[in-house]
């Protein structure tokens, strides 16, 4: 029903940190390789999320009994 949320805010922030670490020149080669892998992994996840998520529009429908609301697909 709902799509697992993806935190772009968090991802972009972490990417910024990695880029800054690279820029500082303080990373050892081992660390640099690790960070690179980590960064590219996050980028791939983000791309995958953006590319595979289909447009999804739903509508909240109040049931006749009025007790609970139901989420239904919405078609115009």
């Amino acid at each position: 029903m709902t799509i697992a949320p993806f935190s772009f805010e968090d991802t972009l922030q972490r990417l910024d940190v990695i880029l800054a670490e690279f820029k500082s020149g303080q990373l050892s080669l081992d660390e640099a390789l690790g960070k690179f892998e980590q960064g590219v992994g996050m980028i791939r996840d983000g791309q995958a999320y953006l590319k595979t998520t289909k447009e999804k529009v739903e509508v909240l429908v109040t049931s006749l009994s009025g007790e609970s609301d139901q989420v239904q697909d919405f078609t115009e």
Partner: protein
Amino acid sequence: MQHSLFSPQLSVSELTTRIQLTLENDPLLGKPLMVQGEVSNLSRSARGHIYLTLKDEGASIKCAIWASAAKKIAFQLEAGQALIVTGKLDIYAPSGSYTLIISHAEPIGIGALQLAFEQMKAQFDAEGLFSTAYKKEIPAYINRLGIVTSLTGSVLHDMLRVLRHKNPSVSILICPATVQGDNAPQSIAAAITKLNQPQYQIDTLIVARGGGSFEDLFCFSTEPVVRAIFASTVPVITGIGHEPDYGLADAVADYSAQTPTAAAERAVFDRESLLLYLEDTQALLQNRLEHQLQQAELAFDHVATQLLHALQQKVSETQSGLETRQERFVDQMNVLLDKQAYMLDEKMNILDSYSPLATLNRGYALVTRDAGQAVLSAQAVSIGETLTIQLYDGLITAKVTS
């Protein structure tokens, strides 16, 4: 006391009934009428009835507004307000008083809704509901958007078109609401509250309605809606009416867009831009890593060169040390040899001086037999024996004859 024959005598009740009848039959007073005056002596009963006096320079009249009618007056009655009221005169027999029963009231000079708007605006403002301190930031990247609007009309359609175009990755949950009429305030407020429920995982909420008159849009300035938006833990973007429309929902919202489609634009990030950004970031990361690898390679080369250099230097140092030592050794050997040679010469000279050969130099001769054995006595030789006589410069072989 004199009583005229023509002056009828009536009881209080009869008089009052008479007055009531007269009023009811009066072409003007018998029907609902409009009266203009200023509000004073305002009070409210626990049941919601309102009592007041309307007055002008010369007169005053007691008025009542029953609770059912009071609910329909959008603005707050205040003392000193100039009103045009619609009402009907009523005689209350037990107290012998007449009261104007008001069914409708309009402020003079300003519309009722406008006045209500100004009053609520002042009240909410005093409460701090519009303060920027309470404004939540609209998240830049969201997964799920909530929309409160009517399912009918083009507004929803237009917003969905914008959202689909800008970012089809964001999922949308619509909570339909009545956006016009008496039920609108409750309906809108309920929808906002519903979409705040955590199970719907809404990141940002849009409250929208298409254009309309001030009266049409007034429901978005009512207390239930304003309070629901204020209470929303999910950031709220309003898109109500067109550009110049600015209601209290806009004032209390975290962000107020000028139109519903502008609200949709504001709510989601541009998917293509983000994809491009991610691509660029990957390239940048790759670039940085390559740079780092190059740096490492350079550093390695540098160290290797230095090491090699140091090694060569050590070798050449060792070599030259060896050479120096060798030279010194040879020198010393030569010195030693020279010394030895010199000493040898000395010894030779001394030996020479002791050598029998040196004696031979002075004219002596050495006589030996074949075997080189020296003949020391004449008695030791026999006739016919061959002897060797050695002189300083050569040998003579001789035979013993006597």
